[in-house]
């Protein structure tokens, strides 16, 4: 995805554009509502009729949905409803941290690669190399070395993801370098840091927002996959991947253990992707303008 920033589009009107776009597009509106609900659920999980998601209750094991345990209980007697809600916290934290870290890393390195020719050659070859590492293999290796925890999962997601951001930012900066307003700034004697900060980096925000939304979705998905495979978060941490992983063997007895976290996961990723598409329609001048 190469993005040529349109200097005629001024940023302040974008928020309004987005609202207009969302209003005329019901899937986007629904997605926003779902995502908002999910965030609220994650934040207010303790107030929403949950119990400690790690509390083991040997008396009430493997029960179907009841008035007390809305989604039923798992083989250790933990409340699945509580685990799914607290799992939203885990997923969102992983997603936001992974997306944020990838963007920051990618922006920093991408700006250097885009502006300095010599660095470009070296950095981009390294990025090509890093991008060839699949996150699952990396996660298996990291777990073998340092055990499974939040840090390993984040590293396993961020490392294969941020080179894509580097590529994106580098492309934008390369295009911007030959823009007359940048050349004018150079001939006005603008020092390099403010040249980058004032004239170039602001023009990377639109593609970064779009890319960020896609990383957010894929990070949530990857975490679930890693946890499901047992190389993600420790088993006691409530995470959608973990719940499904444990439910795998009991699928016929306790389909809720797969379905409830699975449906929430699918809805979350779908909503984020739909919102991301809407953002791209608005921010990317090549596809946008049809609002």
């Amino acid at each position, binding site marked *: 995805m190469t993005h040529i920033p349109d*200097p*005629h*589009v*001024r*940023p302040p009107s974008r928020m309004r554009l987005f609202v207009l776009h969302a209003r005329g597009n019901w899937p986007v509106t629904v997605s926003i509502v779902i995502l908002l609900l999910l965030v609220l659920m994650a934040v207010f999980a303790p107030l929403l009729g949950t119990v400690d998601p790690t509390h083991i209750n040997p008396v009430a094991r493997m029960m179907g949905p009841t008035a007390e345990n809305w989604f039923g209980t798992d083989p250790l007697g933990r409340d699945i409803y509580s685990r799914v809600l607290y799992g939203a916290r885990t997923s969102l934290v992983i997603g936001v941290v992974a997306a944020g870290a990838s963007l920051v890393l990618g922006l920093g390195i991408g700006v250097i690669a885009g502006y300095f020719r010599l660095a470009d050659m070296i950095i981009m070859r390294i990025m090509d190399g890093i991008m060839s590492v699949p996150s699952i293999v990396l996660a298996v290796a990291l777990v073998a070395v340092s055990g499974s925890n939040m840090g390993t999962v984040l590293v396993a997601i961020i490392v294969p993801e941020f080179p894509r951001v580097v590529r994106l930012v580098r492309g934008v900066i390369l295009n911007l370098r030959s*823009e*007359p*307003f940048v*050349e*004018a*700034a*150079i*001939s*006005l*004697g*603008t*020092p390099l840091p*403010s040249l980058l900060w*004032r*004239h170039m980096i*602001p*023009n990377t925000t639109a593609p970064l927002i779009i890319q960020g939304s896609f990383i957010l979705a894929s990070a949530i998905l990857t975490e679930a996959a890693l946890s499901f495979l047992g190389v993600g978060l420790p088993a006691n941490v409530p995470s959608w991947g973990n719940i499904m992983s444990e439910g795998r063997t009991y699928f016929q007895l306790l389909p809720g253990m797969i379905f409830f976290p699975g449906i929430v996961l699918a809805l979350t990723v779908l909503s984020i992707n739909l919102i991301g598409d809407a953002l791209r329609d608005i921010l990317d001048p090549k596809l946008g303008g049809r609002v």
Partner: protein
Amino acid sequence: MSIVLEVKNLTIGVRGAALPPPVNDVSFSIEAGETLCIVGESGSGKSLSSLAIMGLLDRHALRVDAGDITVDGQNILAASSEKLRRMRASTMSMVFQEPMTALNPVERVGSQIEEVLRVHGERSSRRRRARVMEMLDAVHLPEPERIYRSYPHQLSGGQRQRIVICMALILNPKMLIADEPTTALDVTTQKQILALIQEMKDRFNTAVLFITHDFGVVSEIADRIAVMNRGKLVEVGSRDDVLSYPKTDYTRMLVLSVPSLVPRESTSEFGEVVLSVKGLTKTFSSGGFLQKSRSVDAVKAADLELRRNEILGIVGESGSGKTTLARCLARLIAPSKGVINLKGVNISDLRERDLRPHRKNIQVVFQDPFRSLNARMRIKNIITEGLTNYGVSRREGYKKAAELMHLVGLDEAMLDRFPHQFSGGQRQRICIARALALEPDVLVADEAVSALDVSVQRQVLDLLDDIRAKRSIAVLFITHDLRVAGRICDRIMVMKDGDIVEAGTSSQVLGAPHHAYTRQLIASAPGRHWDFENFRPFPVAPGEDISIDTQQ
């Protein structure tokens, strides 16, 4: 003579917006074998009218609110899309501004032309091919066999436009619409294409609707002229009537804005030399690692001197190296060889850090006013950026910005606005204000008026001249348009393929050119027979007394 196209009271409105109609109650007609030029500035509705005639309006955004369009007796507005499709190319066809985008880049031009015949029912491939060959020959393309097998990128801009014209005329349509067909071409090519359109018109008795913003071109080819302004038809009349006796103030202003090829009388006193260049060379090389490296000399050992209070024009066609030269002088790129002496300091090989104190002495105004301002910054911050870079306080900077706004003819109340709230001409004024903020000794104007409408162009040229007088600044004026250079420059240098082929005062270069290329440029300048400023043809066109060989 029979009337081929008749447009009656055409009004085109914008869907779903309370905007004034972009085309408002326009009527005109064209006879067979006649050229009607629609002239107007950007946004006058001239292109929309032509699209409506072809039935190509964007139906989602625009609609015809009123009026009739009749082509060869057929009502276009009532025609079905199938009927319109059959009429295109066979009854009416169109040539656009940019020949590269009008052709499919991955198909040989021969088969693209043949396709026109095929979709209009010519079954025999032998006859199709024969007809294409005949037509390629008619538009004077050399070696039709080779051209037939070429891809668009293998042809020059002029050759591509010939292909497009060939495609448009192969079914012998009654009417040809040409929408700025020569605007993207160099002047020498433009002259040839204009001659070709004239020839085709006479040969096939085609009615030509020619859309342009350039009165020079109009004076060359029009039989009749229609002037449009903001969607309205201002004036229609024969060429000589409109150019000699314009009825409306708007037309008079437009005609008056056209620079004629008359060199200005240089009256100014020049000061000391502020910029002197010796042996400046810029070589671009591509390839390198694992590839054969190729190199091109964009500028070859250029010498020039620029004195205070002087406007030096550098004129050349695309690829002549004029912009590369300008970019070297402003040190936006590093020259390969040579000396750039700016106020006594050689800046040609200074490193960025050592260069900074000298950057403020040379400033640039670029061609595209829409891309040369950072859309996210307020005008006051754009203008004061240079000042803050050199340590001037913000308050002082804003005070200076207000002064500069007055100097370039804008209101200081506009300082808080953003670039998108300004028109192209106003933006170019802001660019000039920004360049002047640092009080440079040299101002480089790189095609600074080329993207502007003629009337705005004239205002900006006057502004540059005015500033030169007020600030006694030296201006390096780079342009492809000899007419514009003649209007503003004290001295002119002509560049071709990286060489400066001719240099001298404007009256020398325009009046008594030495080099054949300069003569060719002068002979190609559209409208050189017409003295626009005095509303009459020249008794003897500038440069006419020189024997000219334009055949290449």
